[in-house]
């Protein structure tokens, strides 16, 4: 249908059936991200030691984009270093906030395909926060 481009097949399927929901065992950090504007809420649970993220799980109450973003984020950062995860978050935000005419090649080089699924949101600024909310929460969890 029209407008479905905002909802990549991957986003749809992960929003319906998240693969990383719940909470981790031997949790080292948990943090809640809220978007008061729309009531979206993401609760992250993670185990990170020695600068490495070993496991991430989320409980998300929100729209399809927020749900899928949390889930794909969990997948993308599991096993990566904290530094890399934070850097990935920055690149993800950059991709979304850069006007759609610029920076097309760069994304593909640096972002996992799963995250590129959100690229069509660029033209829908009011929904950006839905995609970045889990990342903001992750940033908080990792730097607190």
């Amino acid at each position, binding site marked *: 249908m029209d407008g479905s481009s*905002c909802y990549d097949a991957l986003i*749809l399927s992960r929003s319906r059936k998240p693969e990383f929901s719940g909470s981790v065992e031997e949790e080292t950090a948990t943090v809640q991200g809220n978007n008061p504007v729309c009531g979206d809420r993401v609760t992250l649970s993670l185990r990170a030691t020695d600068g490495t993220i070993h496991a991430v799980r989320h409980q998300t109450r929100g729209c399809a*984009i927020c749900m899928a973003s949390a889930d794909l984020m969990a997948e993308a950062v599991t096993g990566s270093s904290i530094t890399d995860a934070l850097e990935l978050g920055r690149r993800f935000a950059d991709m979304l906030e850069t006007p759609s005419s610029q920076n097309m090649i760069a994304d593909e080089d640096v972002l996992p395909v799963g995250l590129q699924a959100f690229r069509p949101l660029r033209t829908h600024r009011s929904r950006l926060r839905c995609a970045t909310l889990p990342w903001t929460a992750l940033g908080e969890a990792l730097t607190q």
Partner: protein
Amino acid sequence: MNIAEIRAQFPILSEKVHGKPLVFLDSAASAQKPDVVIDAMAQMMRSQYANIHRGLHWMSERATEAYEVSRNRVASFLGGAREEIVFTRNSTEAINLVAYSYGSLLKPGQAVLISEMEHHANLVPWQMLRDRAGIELRVAPITDDGDLDLDAYGRLLSDGRVALVAITHMSNVLGTITPAERLVTMAHDAGAKILLDGSQAVVHRKIDVQKLGVDFYVFTGHKLYGPTGIGVLWARRELLEAMPPFMGGGDMISHVTFERSTWAPIPAKFEAGTPAIVEAIGLGTAIDWVENIGYEAIGAHEAALTAHALRVLPEVPGFSVVGKPKERGGVISFTMEDVHPHDIATLLDRNGIAVRAGHHCAEPLMHRLGLTATARASFGIYTTEEEIDTLAETLRRIRQFFV
């Protein structure tokens, strides 16, 4: 009422959005403006503009006259006297004015009574007053259908400590029209003054503040097919006269020395500084335009639209209407199983249909309803049944897409 003719007066309605004809179902957030309003504002700035009051020259006299004529129009629109009409930026400022000014006359031990279905504009100012003045804030519950619980309302009034009731005349979320006369009588019987937030109600029905018997009435221009930047507080003369000014500055004074100042008579006392002159003229024009169409025709049109919507929308799989009030205006909040309201709004938008989604500035009401957000379709004079059919059809496809 000829809808095609009316629509032709709203240039924006022939715009396209994402290549689709615009279907604007967000009038409860802010209505579109007819040509006459836009033209009246432009025309004033093109040919008859100057600052008002105390100008001794022609342009200023004409502008002052036009501004005061708008005040007269608002007065007769609400059934009040011209001195009782205070121009503000919007409903929000009107309520804050009452909370600051009338509120400063309240004493610890007294209470303000609101309801569970208030817009933040009729909640936060009273919270701030509570914290500033040490008064109590009481909240009248609603029923599961979304009506005010009148028994509970009566009980909350019964100890006689409520100084002011502040309640919406129509909910922007549930569409509920509250039983104003009843609320007024009960408030007065308990010795309380009562303010009605008419932001939504005034768009849908004829208001007569005398018949309602209310003490304060507020509304906002931009929802009534008028400009942004202009709203109205009506209050009984005795109240306005007893209330201290809200803001200080030019035009609201009688005499100023460094030691002390005295205030101008009402309504000037409450209009400090250069007002939204052009916007007041725009609002006056919008009111003329609305009254010309007539509330009878508007009411009939909206009732038909709402009935139609309540017939076709619930046939969409997974659709549920939020609230089932006894009496409702042209506002329908809804949810759809397995699709978040934001995703509904985004996909509707991609198909040219503008609705709102979120908590609609009524977070505590959402909480009461056990929701975090709803989608909301709201109708205006220019809305057609076909647009509602398009909405239903598109919702059906959205649901298919997600499930």
